[in-house]
């Protein structure tokens, strides 16, 4: 039993729903109590879908238990087939139905429905949403894909995008364009937009582009063995990764690598002088393994940030993320406990968080800017405009998105210069962010929150504390922490103005 407050992933049947809702012509019959229908709102409200997810819930009640929950399932299954006439169905149990052991798969089989019915075994008490999506897609592909003749033109499948995925809609467009430049067509994109009949012809492609390992790696592995389809290992998020991806695809397809960089702005935006202020900004990165790995590379190599910590919530990715962290000289945090992540952020006091919806809230609470790089996300991360993460435009979007929460370069200097000005003071926040002007609060009324990890033995003298407050907000946390570390290393138990500036000189870079 584990106490959980906020969760990064839903239960595995929500993963199955992400696959089913992304597809067309497929229907999911879920043996579940009525409350589980909340999951529909993830798709209709957060993703703003204009259709109900193709899911029928049996909504059994206590009085049905032990008498006819099984019948209820059969009726729901039959009714769903007749109403929606899908090309194929998936059936399974939610956490509660798993306990009453009605065996939806077995029952559906005996019903003799005229379409393929694929049973799902998703252990609700062990696994989570990403596993559910990966396993569901894997079972669908196994059941429906058959060896078929290859397309005459070189084609690839785009594999992995689902409903409720972070920017999946736009990544598809971007990757399709990347392939097209090399003369490679798209055979099938799945699950997003595919019907069961499309899954049957996955084997006609020459290779698979695995866009999101979280949701489709098992299917790609199976297709590699059974359909002789190799798959790409590079996820093209960031400039470097996009170049690597192009090289990998060229190699797999036997074509000349080609990448049109006319629209690519990130390298120049990073090189231009205004970006000087980005140098060495301390970032903490957290999300799903794939997006974290991509973000770490961009942060260090393409933005010039310092990665001070990273981690992922999906245990399936623990191994590669641990290895990655070692490369970056940090220790990986592998946890799906929001409070662990918050504690880590608090201890590291980064200047920027790259995370999920959860980290956005952590950042808000701790006053640290945050940009979102990974699911789970909220409604504002399904923007109306085109904003992929992958490919050339993805790199441009990422530059803008990550820089946005920060105070701009020139503005940073102005804040240093005019930090005591009554309008232009640091509590007012960055000028390009919305919100009403905040009048300056007299310093005395505003106790500075001590850093979480203040060693007990060290105290700040009043004048040093006052001096600290003169430092702009976006570097104050770092200055406090550095000074305390500096003092602790030297065995000082009191911090004066001198200590503050000695530490500043010590850490100067």
């Amino acid at each position, binding site marked *: 039993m584990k106490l959980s407050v906020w969760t990064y992933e839903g239960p595995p049947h929500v993963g199955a729903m992400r696959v089913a809702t992304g597809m067309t012509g497929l229907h999911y019959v879920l043996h579940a109590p*009525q409350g589980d229908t*909340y999951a529909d709102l993830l798709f209709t409200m957060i993703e703003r879908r204009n259709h109900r997810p193709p899911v029928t819930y049996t909504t059994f009640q206590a009085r049905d238990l032990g008498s006819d929950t099984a019948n209820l399932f059969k009726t729901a299954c039959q009714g769903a087939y007749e109403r929606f006439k899908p090309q194929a169905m998936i059936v399974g149990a939610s956490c509660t139905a798993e306990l009453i052991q009605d065996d939806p798969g077995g029952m559906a089989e005996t019903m003799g429905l005229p379409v393929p019915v694929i049973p799902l075994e998703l252990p609700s008490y062990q696994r*989570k949403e990403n596993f559910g999506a990966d396993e569901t897609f894997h079972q669908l592909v196994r059941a429906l894909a058959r060896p078929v003749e290859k397309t005459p033109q070189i084609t690839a499948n785009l594999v992995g995008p689902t409903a409720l995925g972070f920017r999946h809609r736009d990544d598809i467009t971007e990757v399709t364009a990347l392939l097209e430049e090399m003369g490679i067509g798209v055979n099938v994109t799945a699950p997003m937009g595919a019907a069961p009949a499309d899954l049957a012809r996955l084997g006609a492609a020459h290779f698979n582009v695995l866009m999101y390992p979280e949701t489709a790696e098992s299917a790609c592995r199976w297709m590699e063995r059974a359909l002789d389809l190799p798959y790409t290992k590079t996820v093209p998020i960031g400039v470097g990764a996009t170049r690597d991806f192009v090289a990998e695809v060229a190699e797999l397809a036997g074509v000349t690598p080609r990448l049109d960089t006319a629209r690519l702005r990130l390298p120049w935006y990073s090189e231009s002088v205004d970006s000087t202020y980005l140098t060495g900004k301390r970032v903490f990165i957290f999300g799903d393994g794939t997006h974290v790995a991509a973000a770490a590379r961009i942060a260090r190599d393409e933005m010039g940030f310092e990665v001070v910590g990273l981690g992922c919530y999906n245990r399936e990715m623990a191994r590669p993320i641990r290895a990655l962290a070692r490369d970056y000289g940090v220790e990986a945090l592998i946890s799906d406990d929001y409070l662990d992540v918050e504690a880590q952020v608090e201890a590291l006091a980064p200047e920027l968080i790259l995370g999920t919806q959860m980290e956005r809230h952590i950042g808000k609470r701790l006053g640290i800017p945050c940009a979102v790089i990974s699911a789970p996300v*909220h409604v504002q991360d399904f923007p109306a405009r085109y904003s992929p993460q992958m490919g050339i435009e993805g790199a441009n979007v990422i530059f803008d998105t990550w820089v946005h929460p920060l105070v701009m370069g020139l503005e940073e200097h102005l804040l240093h210069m005019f930090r005591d000005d009554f309008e232009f003071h640091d509590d007012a926040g960055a000028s390009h962010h919305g919100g009403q002007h905040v009048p300056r609060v007299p310093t005395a009324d505003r106790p500075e929150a001590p850093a979480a990890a203040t060693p007990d033995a060290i105290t700040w003298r009043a004048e040093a504390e006052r001096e600290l407050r003169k430092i702009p907000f976006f570097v104050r946390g770092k200055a406090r922490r550095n000074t305390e570390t500096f003092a602790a290393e030297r065995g000082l138990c009191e911090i004066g103005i001198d200590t503050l500036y000695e530490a500043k000189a010590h850490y100067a870079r």
Partner: protein
Amino acid sequence: MTRHTPPPPAAGCRNAPVLKQRGQHEVFCGLTGIIWLHRKMQDAFFLVVGSRTCAHLLQSAAGVMIFAEPRFGTAILEETDLAGLADAQEELEAQVERLLERRGDIRQLFLVGSCPSEVIKLDLARAAERLSARHAPRVRVLNYSGSGIETTFTEGEDACLAAMVPALPATDRRQLMLVGALPDVVEDQALDLLAQMGITDVTVLPARHADSDVAVGPNTVFALTQPFLGGTHAALERRGARHIPAPFPFGEEGTTAWLRAVAREFGVDPARFDAVTDAPRARARHAVAKATETLNGKSVFFFPDSQLEVPLARFLTRECGMEALEVGTPYLHKGVVGAELDLLADGTALSEGQDVDLQLDRCRAARPDLTVCGLGLANPLEAEGLTTKWAIELVFTPVHFYEQAGDLAGLFSRPLRRRAALKLEAAE
């Protein structure tokens, strides 16, 4: 005084036939009530004993309301807990110990049952009893079910309040009890109106803090502020309290009828009643009239959601000039909403329970001007050209009593005004 609402219908709907269908329900389970109950009871913690699904439901229903460490959480059952029951019981108690140690601010702890905990027959009552004995008097531990196999959406609040009743101290005081978790601002308004009429011995269930001296006994009379409190109603009657039946305080008419029933019980002089209510009644009518410009003559269709459907249909038809095509409710408790049914025009279609696909067919055929439904259905129906109002807002927004009557009407008129305001075609 001029008449602003029509006279009650000749027959009303108390004995009207009710359509009952059994198919897929598209409703939340009772766990959802935790979202507003934990804001109301400021020293209570709600510990759901359930699965990852339950935790995810709470998070999704809470939307962006993320607090650093909210006063609710889910003890997620794992494979090991399912293997041996004795362990789960011990595990739960250990979790509670850790929680109470960390959160010294907690004075009431609710162990909330879920479908999984009920299917495996985890005995939360016993756990609550043992934990209560161990932590009294600092913390009181109670339990109730918010499971989807037992409760629908607002029934979670009912189960929670009903669980509190047996633990209330006894009293012989002649007093009024207001029952239902209302936003503080609304509750204060109600208490103020009652005080102006001279009714001052009033307690509220649930109280904002555990140490408020809410008690109950044979001289207690109670008035429900929410229509979904059937279980609490029964629990209070078992403690000897007596119910004051009345329509619910939605809109000018409902609020006046509700107050009048209470005033009559306490022998308030009619002149005094009018003196206290005349001004706010006029304000409420004025505010509702604005929204009525949009709502008048429009039709409305209710999907079952919170059990507020019957009182709201009464408000919209009688005060806002709307026509109710179908009033769906998860559960029709005639003992509680009888007075409301009397005011619904004869011939209004009532339905209880749900087969969502069949009901969607009826809704599409009826083409109402406004459809009141859950979050899962709203956008798909909008995409089909139907204007919708999310039902959940009706329980998350202050809508009771006079000063909110205009806001309540506004919740329904806004989607219609919005649709009329959007001009997305080319100008030509």
